[in-house]
Structures are given as structure tokens and as C-alpha cells.
């Protein structure tokens, strides 16, 4: 055959056709696509019947609904090789529009919306009771029974040796049922060393108790027409954020005026009708100066106020607008104008609250604000300061004989209920060194005050037990880990958030079994009490947390458990108590101002709902929503500084600096922000975890570890709002 043109074409066409009829091309194409793209596993979420369950997030005070899927098919895949994933899973946490304090909006805060990430992220959960093998440094799983035996054995041994006081405990919230159980446990066991995370609730209760003889008070934010917020992060985490935001929406719609007194151009300051840029930590002085104007101009309400003469003498001598001008950095006329505006406004309330780092605040500041409210005459009136109703709760049953014996035991020793002094005394061995520590559902080695000091103490204690949901900073220092359930997996409750006018109560129940071996913190303590027997078991005669809650709520339990919340129906107006202005106490608390000791700048916190600073950690989704500047330089801490201050220090935007305080130093990048007060340095709070896996570990710095805590001159409660620092360019 001649190899002519026709033959070539025939051969080529035949070849191509033949090749295409064989599987070779398709096989090669398939291989090429597989090997060039190498698709990894993409999850295929199982569908199923949808249900919604009511719950309550105790960390944020939000009533929520949890969407549950009852999966029809459980896929077997790389992450679930044996197909044993639980059938019921939660796919979403959303707001509960029925919650009255949310005004039907049904909103949430980022922490609620991403709560499932904290619950499901197994890498950072405590999955089973684990004991640390001190020779190898590896945790070994043990049974709940063995773990409880171990702790009870050590407790019994110490008690027998008359060293019960050497057991220290730290809890999260003293007012909820878990806190009450922990209190009863420690009292019956005989140790006075029990501390809780310090809160503004404590300061407000003390101030109100002293001045109004009513510790349970709130600010009627929903009824107010003029709101003067003195240094509070009103829109950045005050009280239950969802309820405060609902009130804010009402102000916007109803034309109420919000005035924010603060040193930084925060979210609240920007959303306020007026921002009074006052020096940091001087809000108490400003409130007193405003009191002076009200009294001098005859704008103060008529009525009997005990100690008015002393109070008048105090403000006239030390807190006139002229005298306050230096401390507050405001012009006397501005103070006067603000006081007159407040005095003449209808339904006006002055609000005090936690500081930006979520610290409890100074007693004097709170008392000054309450005095301002008393002079305004808004006590018990709509839009004023009101006394809250009682919660529908019975106290924990405490058999008289047993608990009295326990308390007598506890009272024999010097003890600390303040984490700041507890850690300092323990480190100094003054008068003794603790032999055992119980961390019950809290993370003191991360949160303030002086997280570093607390962590140091935990490292020195020979036996640390942590009842924790997460492998957090405190749990990683523990010798024995007990798995606690998150609010989605366990029984628990939450009492009225800070400063709320209506009493409210939240109850969460086990909806899921994400970590099947986890138990409520209260359950672990009750198991321990039962094992210890004697006085402790008698003080806590409950088999489980659910039983304790049932006993406390009585007949109302079923309804509250179903709804997830209880709210006082109406704000109770009317105030028939007496008011004591307590000028001497105010003067004592405010007289002690932190000296800067020649430091160049002052470090303060920037609160935000994007970072959160409460009992639960930041979630991976929340790392995604940080502002562009918060982690602009990868994981480095970014501190805000006023451009003018930076100019004096020869700093440029983005410069690397060393920030030194008495607590130690850290490196940070500076970010220019015109809204930062000159002479100040601002740092976000809620970042800088040293635990919690790759999403969160090492992202920024921990404000709580670098802030210097001081004791309030009257209450002794730690205050860590302002830290004097030196800044040096690297």
C-alpha cells in the first residue's frame, strides 16, 4: 500500500476513533483530574427531622433556641469511621423571640451564635476524667468513680490532719446554683478559702447595701428617657447584652438621649447623642461634681437624705466643678452644663457599671453615681434606679446542725474570698501554703485579676483538680481533670445579669450528648460531697444538679425548664427605704487614686462583644469577625495610641514597641486611632489565650495577664482598669 495522503488521513482518523473507543482517554483524564486536583474531604451534613429546644446561655444571659436535627442517616466518613456519631445534633443556636427582655427581637451576640463551635470542637474539650502521670507528664483516662475516690480521699486526709483550710477553691459565679453548691461544700468541709471571679455585681450590691439598704437594685433602662452612662461599656458587654441592646433600640425609636462619659471613642460613645471625653477613672469625681452643681443650683430633689450635710460639705470642699476640672480633664462649664441638663431631664438615670476590662469597679465611683441618682430623685421611679423583685428560688437546703458545724470550722482559719489576695497569700505562704486547689467551672489562670499570679499559684499547689469543659489555661495546670458539660449538655442556671431592672432567671438543660462522659460542675461537686459523707454530705443532700434545681424552683421547675427562663413580670416601682449618702466612705474610696509612678502612659482595655471577656472563651468564628486592625500583624498584639501621643514618642503607625508594666513586659504593634485619649494605650481584652488549640492559641496578647490589679481602698476588691506602663520602640 502506498503511503499517500488518503492513507495517512485514514490512518489518523482511524487512530483517533479507535483511541476514543478505548477506555484509555477517559481513564487518563480521570487520573489527571484526580491527581492534579486532589480534592480533600468535604463534609456532607446529614439531613433529618428538625426540632427547636429552649435553652439559656449563662455566659451571656441570652435566652436561646437550639435547632436540633435528628439525623436519618449517619454518614460513615473519615471523621466518623465507625458510624457511631450521635443521632441528635445541634446545628444552630438562635435567639428566643419570646424572651420578654429582648423585646421580641430575638437577637443574639456572637458568643451565642457560635456556641456550638465551643461545644463540638472536641480537640479542646475535656472528654473524660483524666489524671496526670507526673513522671511522664501525660494524662491518663480514669473512671468517674476512681476520680471521685481520689479527690475525696485527699480531702478526707487533709481534713483528718486538721488542714482543711489548705484546700482552696475557685468558682465562676457565686449566685447561681453551682456557686451555691460550691459555697455550701467549702463551708461544710471547713475551708474559708473560696473565691469567685470578681464582678461589678459585688460592688453594686455593696454600694446599694450601704446607701439604700437594698443590695438588689437595677437601672430601669427601658423606662429611661435620659441615660447618663458613667464609664460603662453599655453597648460592649454590660449586663445581658441582648437586653441592653433591646433597650437601646427603644431609645432610638422613642427619642431617649444617651450620654456617654468615657475616655475613648468607643462604640457606646459613638452611638451616644453626646460623648463626654473624661479622663479615665474619673467618673466618680465627675458624678460628685455634678452632685455639687445639683445641690448648689437647687436642682436636687426634695426629700430626706441621711448624711446630706456631710455630703454637701464633702462636695463643696473637694468636688466643685472647678476642683474636678483637673481630675476629669473637663472644663468647669462643661461639668455644670451636663449637671444642669441631667438635673432638668425627665426620667433620667445615671448608670455605673463594670470597667472596660470587666473589672468590678471602685466602690466610691458606684456610690457617687448612686448619690447622683438619689439627688435626682429617681429612686423607685420609672426610668430611674429601682429595687429588683426576688427570684422564685428557695435557698439550698442546709441542715442546721451540719452546716453550722462546718462554718464554725471554716471560721477558725484566716481565709480569702478575694482571688487577688488569695493568690498573693498562697504564693507567700502567709500563713500557710495550699495543698489542694479545686477549680470549678472557671478559668482564673486566664481571666483577671492578675491571671499570671493565679497561674503561678496553681503551679505551686501539689494537687489541682479542675472541673472544666475545656482544656483551658487553668485546666492545663491541673493534676486531675473532670469533664464538665457545656450549657447544651448539662443542667445549670443563671441569675439576674448586672444592673437589670427586672429580676430574671435562666435555666439550661441537657439537650445533647456531645461529650458523653461530661457532667455538670454541680453534679461533680455533689458526687464528691456524697463520697466524703459526714457534714459535707449532710449539707448537700441532693443526688444530682437536676434534683438541686428542682428543689430550689419547687413547682415552677417544669415551666422554667420548658421555657428556659423566668422574668419578673413588671419593674417594681416605688422606694420606701431611707437613703444614706455615706460621704466618709465615698471620700475614702475615691481618695486613693492610683499613682502613675512616673510612667509615661496608661494601659486600659477595649471591651468588645467580638472578643468577649466572660466565663466562656472566644470562638473560632469570632476570630473571623475581629476588626481588620485587631490582628493586623498576624498574631501580634495591637495597641491603640493617639497619633499626637505617638508623635511625642517618635512612633509611627505599625511600629513594634515594648510595653513594660510592673507586671512584666510584652511586645506589641502600635495602631493610630484618633479616638484614643492622648497619654493612653488601649488593648483588646479577650484575646491571647495560651490554650484552646490552633484557632485561638497565641492570637494577640492577654490583657488580664499584663494589667496591674489594685485593691479598692474600702472593699479590698481588685480593680485592674488602669495600668501605668512605659513604651519603648524596638
Amino acid at each position, binding site marked *: 500500500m502506498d503511503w499517500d495522503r488518503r492513507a495517512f488521513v485514514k490512518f489518523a482518523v482511524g487512530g483517533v476513533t479507535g483511541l476514543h473507543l478505548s477506555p484509555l482517554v477517559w481513564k487518563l483524564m480521570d487520573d489527571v483530574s484526580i491527581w492534579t486536583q486532589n480534592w480533600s474531604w468535604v463534609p456532607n451534613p446529614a439531613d433529618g427531622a428538625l426540632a427547636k429546644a429552649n435553652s439559656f446561655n449563662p455566659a451571656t444571659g441570652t435566652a436561646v433556641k437550639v435547632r436540633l436535627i435528628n439525623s436519618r442517616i449517619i454518614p460513615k466518613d473519615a471523621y466518623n469511621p465507625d458510624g457511631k456519631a450521635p443521632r441528635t445534633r445541634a*446545628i444552630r443556636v438562635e435567639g428566643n423571640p419570646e424572651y420578654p427582655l429582648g423585646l421580641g427581637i430575638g437577637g443574639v451576640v456572637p458568643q451565642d451564635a457560635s456556641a456550638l463551635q465551643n461545644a463540638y470542637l472536641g480537640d479542646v474539650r475535656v472528654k473524660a476524667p483524666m489524671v496526670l502521670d507526673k513522671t511522664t507528664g501525660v494524662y491518663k483516662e480514669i473512671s468517674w468513680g476512681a476520680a471521685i475516690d481520689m479527690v475525696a480521699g485527699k480531702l478526707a486526709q487533709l481534713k483528718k490532719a486538721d488542714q482543711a483550710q489548705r484546700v482552696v477553691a475557685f468558682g465562676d459565679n457565686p449566685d447561681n446554683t453551682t456557686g451555691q453548691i460550691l459555697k455550701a461544700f467549702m463551708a461544710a468541709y471547713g475551708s474559708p478559702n473560696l473565691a469567685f471571679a470578681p464582678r461589678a455585681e459585688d460592688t453594686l450590691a455593696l454600694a446599694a447595701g450601704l446607701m439604700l439598704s437594698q443590695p438588689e437594685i437595677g437601672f430601669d433602662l427601658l423606662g429611661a428617657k435620659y441615660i447618663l452612662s458613667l464609664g460603662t461599656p453599655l453597648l460592649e458587654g454590660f449586663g445581658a447584652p441582648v437586653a441592653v441592646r433591646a433597650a437601646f433600640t427603644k431609645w432610638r425609636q422613642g427619642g431617649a438621649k444617651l450620654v456617654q462619659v468615657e475616655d475613648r471613642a468607643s462604640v457606646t460613645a459613638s452611638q451616644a447623642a453626646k460623648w463626654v471625653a473624661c479622663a479615665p477613672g474619673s467618673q466618680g469625681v465627675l458624678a460628685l461634681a455634678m452632685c455639687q452643681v445639683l445641690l448648689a443650683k437647687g436642682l436636687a430633689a426634695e426629700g430626706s437624705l441621711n448624711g446630706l450635710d456631710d455630703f454637701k460639705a464633702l462636695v463643696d470642699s473637694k468636688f466643685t466643678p472647678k476642683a474636678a476640672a483637673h481630675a476629669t480633664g473637663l472644663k468647669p462649664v462643661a461639668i455644670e452644663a451636663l449637671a444642669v441638663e441631667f438635673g432638668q431631664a425627665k426620667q433620667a438615670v445615671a448608670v455605673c457599671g463594670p470597667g472596660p476590662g470587666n473589672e468590678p469597679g471602685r466602690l466610691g465611683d458606684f456610690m457617687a453615681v448612686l448619690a447622683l441618682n438619689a439627688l435626682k430623685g429617681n429612686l423607685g421611679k420609672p426610668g430611674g434606679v429601682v429595687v429588683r423583685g426576688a427570684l422564685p428560688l428557695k435557698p439550698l437546703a442546709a441542715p442546721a446542725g451540719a452546716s453550722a458545724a462546718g462554718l464554725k470550722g471554716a471560721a477558725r482559719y484566716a481565709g480569702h474570698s478575694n482571688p487577688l489576695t488569695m493568690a498573693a497569700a498562697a504564693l507567700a505562704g502567709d500563713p500557710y501554703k495550699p495543698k489542694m486547689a479545686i477549680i470549678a467551672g472557671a478559668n482564673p489562670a486566664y481571666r483577671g485579676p492578675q491571671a499570671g499570679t493565679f497561674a503561678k499559684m496553681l503551679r505551686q499547689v501539689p494537687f489541682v483538680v479542675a472541673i472544666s469543659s475545656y482544656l483551658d489555661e487553668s485546666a492545663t495546670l491541673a493534676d486531675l481533670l473532670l469533664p464538665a458539660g457545656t450549657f447544651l449538655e448539662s443542667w445549670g442556671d443563671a441569675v439576674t445579669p448586672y444592673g437589670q431592672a427586672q429580676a430574671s432567671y435562666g435555666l439550661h438543660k441537657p439537650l445533647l450528648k456531645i461529650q458523653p462522659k461530661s457532667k455538670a460542675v454541680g453534679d461533680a461537686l455533689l458526687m464528691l460531697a456524697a463520697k466524703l459523707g459526714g457534714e459535707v454530705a449532710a449539707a448537700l443532700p441532693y443526688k444530682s444538679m437536676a434534683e438541686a434545681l428542682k428543689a430550689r424552683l419547687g413547682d415552677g421547675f417544669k415551666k422554667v425548664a420548658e421555657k428556659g427562663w423566668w422574668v419578673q413580670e413588671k419593674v417594681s416601682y416605688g422606694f420606701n427605704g431611707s437613703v444614706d449618702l455615706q460621704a466618709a466612705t465615698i471620700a475614702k474610696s475615691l481618695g486613693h487614686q492610683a499613682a502613675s509612678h512616673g510612667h509615661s502612659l496608661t494601659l486600659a482595655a477595649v471591651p468588645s462583644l*467580638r472578643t468577649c471577656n466572660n466565663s466562656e472563651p472566644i470562638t473560632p468564628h469570632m476570630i473571623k469577625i475581629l476588626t481588620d486592625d485587631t490582628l493586623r500583624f*498576624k498574631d501580634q498584639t495591637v495597641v491603640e495610641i493617639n497619633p499626637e501621643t505617638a508623635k511625642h514618642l517618635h512612633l509611627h503607625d505599625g511600629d513594634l514597641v515594648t510595653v513594660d508594666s510592673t507586671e512584666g513586659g510584652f511586645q506589641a504593634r502600635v495602631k493610630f486611632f484618633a*479616638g484614643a485619649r492622648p497619654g493612653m494605650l488601649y488593648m483588646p481584652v479577650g484575646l491571647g489565650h495560651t490554650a484552646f488549640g490552633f484557632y485561638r492559641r497565641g492570637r494577640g496578647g492577654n490583657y488580664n495577664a499584663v494589667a496591674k490589679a489594685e485593691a479598692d481602698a474600702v472593699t479590698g476588691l481588685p480593680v485592674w482598669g488602669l495600668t501605668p506602663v512605659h513604651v519603648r520602640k524596638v
Partner: protein
Amino acid sequence: MPVATGEHLYGMVIDVDKCTGCGACSVACMSENNIGTLPDETDKIRSITWLRVYQIDNGRPYPDTEVAFFPRPCMHCGGSWGGFFQQDADPEGHHTPCVSVCPATATDYDDETGIVSQIPTRCIGCRYCVAACPYHARYFNWYDVPWPGGLEQSLSPYVAPRMRGVVEKCTFCYHRYQQARDKEFAGGEFGEMDYQTACTEACPSGAITFGDLNNPEHQVSKLLRQRHKHAFRLLERLGTNPKVYYMTKREWVRKRADNYLPGEKIHRFAVGS
């Protein structure tokens, strides 16, 4: 020719004066739409946030500084449709920027709802749409999203998780529209509250309102009628015709919504005229 010929025209009104920048909308969106978290989310260029909350400030020195927030979902640009109450065609003939450049029909403008769809399984990852979107609302999956330690258990079955190499963006929670239509088909009613986006529900200040701009009874339409003087859209002068409206009483916030020259007067588009 008006683009929206269908029954519905879904849009959003965001009250900037109520927004406190907490980010609840953004996180609620992530949990609703199965948006994953990369190991390092500090790199904002590659971080995926369908609804991103931008912080702006007025640029004035202390103590006159003020900040505000622009929550930015996909704008669902309508293109040649003159805006609310202004049914005339845009004489310049603008179009939805992303839809017109997509070579794979992976994104489309739905005439029935006015929603700009995104179909990840059709996407070939060319990223023309990412480049075309003036709002940076489109995100490319540069990496595989890890779902470590049981995190995939929290995924919603209503939205498919995306693979590496495709573009994704806000869909106005289109699956919720489908669910509402399913309910209607089964004999139920399709009311205003039956189709709401996750961000709208999550906002604790009630700053986001969502609904049908074609329906005068819906809250979005009422708001735009009542407060048209305060309403504006982002980068309006581009003629993209977004369906996400913002509202503010603050002039400086409004000025930040577009690129103005120093001293230039704010160009007011005919919203509700």
C-alpha cells in the same frame, strides 16, 4: 427594560445608627451557611465572611472622633433598574457586575426574587466575579476548610459546605426562601416573617430589616418610604443598583459610603423620590 420583572424583589435595610458592630449578624450567617474557619484567620484577604462588618470613623481628632459600622452582605445588585420607586431603566445600561463576567453561569440574577445566586458546583474558580465585585462581597476558597474534632457535627444540612477552588458569597439565605416556598406549596402561607435572613434574626438591636421591596406592606418598603431622606446605598455612583440600603442621620457616615473628593457634595440618588 427593568430587570426585576418577577413577583418579588428582596432587599435589606440596615440602620447604621442602630448598629453597634457586635458582629452577631456575621457569626449567625457563618453558622447558618456552614462557613468554616481556617487555622489562621488573621489574614483578612483570604478569610471568608459573607457578611463582613466594616468599621469606619469620621477621621476627626480627639475628642470629636466617632466610629460607625457598615455590615456588608452581598448587595444583590440589580443593574439596570433605577432604584426603589424609580422604575425607569438606567440609561447607561449597567448590569450586575459579577453575573455579567461569569463564564460558567455559576452566578445568576434571579428575576423572580431579585437574588444573585451562587452555585459553587458550577464554579470553575476563575475569580472574574471576585475582581468585578466592587463591594468585595465575593470570596474564593483558597484552602480546604478543616472540620477538626467533631466540628462537622454542627453543620446545617440545608447548605452544602463548599470545596476548595470555588467562589462563595451571601445568598440572602436562599435556602430559607425555598423552605418558605415549600411551606406555601404544602398549603401554608408565605408571610413576611416566613422568609428572613439569619443576620436579620440575629441582630440584637433590630438594625437589619429584610423583606420584599415590591410589597408595600413589608417593613423594608415602609422604612424606605418613611425615612427616604436618610437612606443610601454603598458606591451608588457605580450604577450597580444594590438592593441593600443603609440608613443614617449622620452626614459623615453617608459620605463614607462612596468615594468623594474633598469638598465634593454628596450625590443624592433618588431613593423614594
